[in-house]
């Protein structure tokens, strides 16, 4: 299998070195195209006016927020089941990126919500599940930061990620139940009219650009994490290297 060849971190780093410039290039191109279409070719919505342009950031960010958790869940399986040495690096690197995308989708959604619904936030089922997802990301990051040993932390976080992945559908279901149970029909439903093709194409281009951005960031973060762990290993090694005292034991301490 290909990913097993890159179990060796050194080889992985070399691969990253090669891939990264291309990926960055593609990402820039995709963003340029996407943003151009967003601002110049995509029509304004007849109801929402120019605010609809927020969609081209909001929706890809929301998709990425969910995709990122899936990647973390797969990486966690890699840590626990296949014991792939880079799996926990991948999971750890993905968490802050996922949190950032989730945050972005929350912020853009809220900003969009103000003109649309007259309020920044409603406890709608979908919004609320995104908020819960955000808390889960932050909890995972906190767990990683609190545990000193990266390998142990990786295993603990992998278990939590997988338990969270099992729970996410339950959370989603229960939040939907909760909202429809308590709330009369007054909540504005999103969904809205089916989207026109002229809007769908820029949306897809932006989605591709965001996905590329994710991979760029993810690879860079993985590289940093590997280097960070190497630094840690070297420092541990430095600490463990026994060195005799510079002065013999019986000498006076003063000199």
């Amino acid at each position, binding site marked *: 299998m290909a990913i097993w060849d890159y179990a060796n*971190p050194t080889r992985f780093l070399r691969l990253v070195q090669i891939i990264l410039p291309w990926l960055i290039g593609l990402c820039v191109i995709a963003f340029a195209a996407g943003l151009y279409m967003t601002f110049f070719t995509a029509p304004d919505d007849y109801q929402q006016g120019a605010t609809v342009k927020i969609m081209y950031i909001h929706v890809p960010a929301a998709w990425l927020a969910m995709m990122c958790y899936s990647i973390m869940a797969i990486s966690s399986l890699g840590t626990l089941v296949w014991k792939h040495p880079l799996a926990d690096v991948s999971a750890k690197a993905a968490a802050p990126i996922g949190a950032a995308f989730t945050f972005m989708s929350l912020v853009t959604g809220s900003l969009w919500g103000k003109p649309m619904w007259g309020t920044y936030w409603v406890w709608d089922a979908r919004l609320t599940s995104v908020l819960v997802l955000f808390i889960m990301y932050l909890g995972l990051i906190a767990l990683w930061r609190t545990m000193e040993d990266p390998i142990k932390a990786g295993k603990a976080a992998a278990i939590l990620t997988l338990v969270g992945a099992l729970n996410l559908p339950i959370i989603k279901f229960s939040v939907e139940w909760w909202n429809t149970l308590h709330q009369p029909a007054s909540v504005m439903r999103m969904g809205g009219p089916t989207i026109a093709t002229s809007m769908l194409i820029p949306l897809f281009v932006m989605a591709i650009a965001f996905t590329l951005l994710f991979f760029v960031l993810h690879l860079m973060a993985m590289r940093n994490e590997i280097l960070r*762990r*190497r630094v*840690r*290993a070297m420092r541990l*090694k430095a600490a*463990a*290297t026994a060195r005799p005292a510079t002065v013999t034991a019986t000498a006076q301490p003063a000199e």
Partner: protein
Amino acid sequence: MTGANGVGKSSLLRTLAGLVPLKEGGISLEGGEDDRTAFEHSHYFGHQDAVKPALTVLENLTFWQAFTAPISADVFPTEIHKPADALEFLGIGHTARLPAAYLSAGQKRRLSLARLLVSSRPIWLMDEPTSALDRHSEAQLLGLMNAHLDRGGMIVTATHTDLPLNSIRTLHLEAPQDVRIVGELA
């Protein structure tokens, strides 16, 4: 097992006890019960006493007897002491009904030692067993260790002082010139 501070004695013992996962290779035991792993044949006697201050001395010991399955080996017949006898034997019989919180460091250590007597296992893994013991208790501990060896048991112990045991093989650990940290993606 001897060696300088931080050379890895405790880590080796914990690895033998199955508490530190192996990076590669395996640990196997000849002549034990087949359906059990090597570390299920061992008692681990580390720096910590696993003594609950809120329970009485006897309750502490009785729990560990019920919890730890005794295991035999070909050359090592099972032999189990009653908790009360083990306490008596270690000279803390008079504390049996007291909460373990009232014990001094040395007494707690003896209570922890009694654990090895109430459930018999062929291998004892001991990390600096004589630390915090006074001379009298140390002599008594050495007597126990020798008795265990005589019955066919095995002891792996890390120590900084010489222990006068019946049959000794010393493993001296030295720090390698070039320490390699494994599993660190290096």
